[in-house]
């Protein structure tokens, strides 16, 4: 479904990605784990077209999407939940969700809105409240809901557990599983390697701009090196 072919990205003189190749197949949950600064977020940003590639290519289905502007990539059905949630603080929950469906016809949003509200009842209660007044967990839910409003075929999640209480994290992960069950393919970037590996079908481990390991998530979870470096065992 999605293929990254040896991509390089640099910010000024600093090379953030040094030849990353990975693949996401239809219906999978793929986890991308690694330490701070390994290039996980940059990988997502380059998939959604916000960061440009120096070399390499990204294919989505049979289309070449590297070099496309972000709005065209969203239109193809790739939607991102950015790191740090990035909800629109001075717009209401409902308006935030409507913005998520910016590229779609406004008259057809009701079923999607209902679906998001069913998934996150807390948001339904607060639909008229300004996004900035929500708690961290609710904001994360709003960010995920907003991304779902564009009816993505591929959902890119960047650190959905960042700064949240363990109980909220497990709820968010359950919902990610649910979204996947409803037919959306997921690429998940996480620092919480343990939870990510439990959820994912396959996983990639990144280190300073390169993929250093890959394989089925269960295999990686039992790998002694990974255990030592990322799982704290």
């Amino acid at each position: 479904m999605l293929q990254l072919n040896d991509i390089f990205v640099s910010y000024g003189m600093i090379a953030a990605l040094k030849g990353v190749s990975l693949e996401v197949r239809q219906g999978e949950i793929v986890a991308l784990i690694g330490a701070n600064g390994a290039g996980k977020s940059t990988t997502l940003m380059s998939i959604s077209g916000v960061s440009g590639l120096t070399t390499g290519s990204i294919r989505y289905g049979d289309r070449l999407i590297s070099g496309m502007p972000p709005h065209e990539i969203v239109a193809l059905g790739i939607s991102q939940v950015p790191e740090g949630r990035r909800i629109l603080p001075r717009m209401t929950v409902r308006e935030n969700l409507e913005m998520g469906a910016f590229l779609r016809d406004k008259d057809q949003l009701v079923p999607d809105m209902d679906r998001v509200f069913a998934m996150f009842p807390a948001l339904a209660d607060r639909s008229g409240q300004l996004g900035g007044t929500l708690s961290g967990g609710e904001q994360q839910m709003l960010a995920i809901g907003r991304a779902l409003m564009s009816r993505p075929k591929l959902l890119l999640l960047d650190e959905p557990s960042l700064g949240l209480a363990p109980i909220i994290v497990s709820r968010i992960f359950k919902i990610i599983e649910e979204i996947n069950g409803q037919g959306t393919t997921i690429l998940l970037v996480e620092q919480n390697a343990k939870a990510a590996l439990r959820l994912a079908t396959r996983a990639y481990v990144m280190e300073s701009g390169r993929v250093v390991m890959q394989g089925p998530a269960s295999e990686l979870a039992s790998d002694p090196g990974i255990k030592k470096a990322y799982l704290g065992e």
Partner: protein
Amino acid sequence: MSESRITVTRCLSFLAVPLWAGALAFPFAGPWRAVQVVLVILAGVALWGLLKTDTASRIVEAVIYKASGLRATATSVLSRTRSPLFLSLFVVLLFVIPFFQNDYYRDVLTLTGMYAVLALGLNIMVGQTGLLNLGYVAFYAIGAYSYAILSTRFGLNFWPGLVVGAASSAFMALLIGLSTLRLRGDYFAIVTLGLGEITRIVLNNSDAITGGPNGISRIGRPSIGGTVLSTPLDFYYLILVIAIITVFAMNRLMVSRIGRAWIAIREDEIAAEAMGVNTFRLKLLAFVVASAWAGLVGVFFAAKMAFVSPESFTFFESVMILCMVVLGGMGSIPGIILGAFLLVTLPEVFRDFADYRMLGFGVALVLMMVFRPQGLLGTAKNSK
């Protein structure tokens, strides 16, 4: 250091500021003025010191509490401005009011209307999209000069002139925007600052086309069916109609899909991008629309004065218009009209204190930033 010595040094430092200001004023204003400056600032410092004592701060708190009551009234006024009855009454009042006044007041009101339209135009960029424009006056000047040149050389009529003026400003914005809108935040503001100055200097030095510092005079007046509009009353009604159309257009724009996208860009540009908003194109659109409005008012200005010269288009004008947007409340139409009204009429009312106008502006803006950053009538939701 002992208690008393601390008090002494503090007193000295309080004295230092007024004395320093007096010393600065002396060579320019003479001894008498310098003493006045010292006394005024000393009084200010003393008042400040007094306010910092416990009782005083409690009183100030009480006053602010009262003022927040005022705030509540302001909000309710704001919500009332949305009711159709209030709106139509207000518009009728605007149509009737100049009959009871002399030409001086009509001119002041016309000026208010002009600046209100300019500020509403700028609001699209600053209030709605979050793009700071420090050279808005450039587009005002381009509109005014386009009409001035075409009217005096080719006898262009006012009504097509309005369209041509707006279009030439919009075209200029398109050119500038295409090349510079990829810059983010402050860098773009610096570009516009430069643009404002460059435009004025070019106008000042292109003698052959713009008449240089002498400007262009005998610009054609607008006419309706053979009647030439020339009295202050005529121009009042003309700008009133333009302002009403502007308010209507802005209102539609703000609630449209485009308006939403603009707000999203202001709130978080990267998030907007990730949601599929074509941020570059929408920022360009905001720039072009805002500039077209400035061009339109420029044509009106040229026709009203029948004369344009570069000194009407200084950086100070850009700052004034920006202040109107900020003071009134970014993103709030009634707020911006109020801002324009205050910033045009207050200097007229306080003409005797014209020397201290800048000082007053500065203090007012600082106070606004501290106590009401969202502007007089801006709601928390609409403002940044």
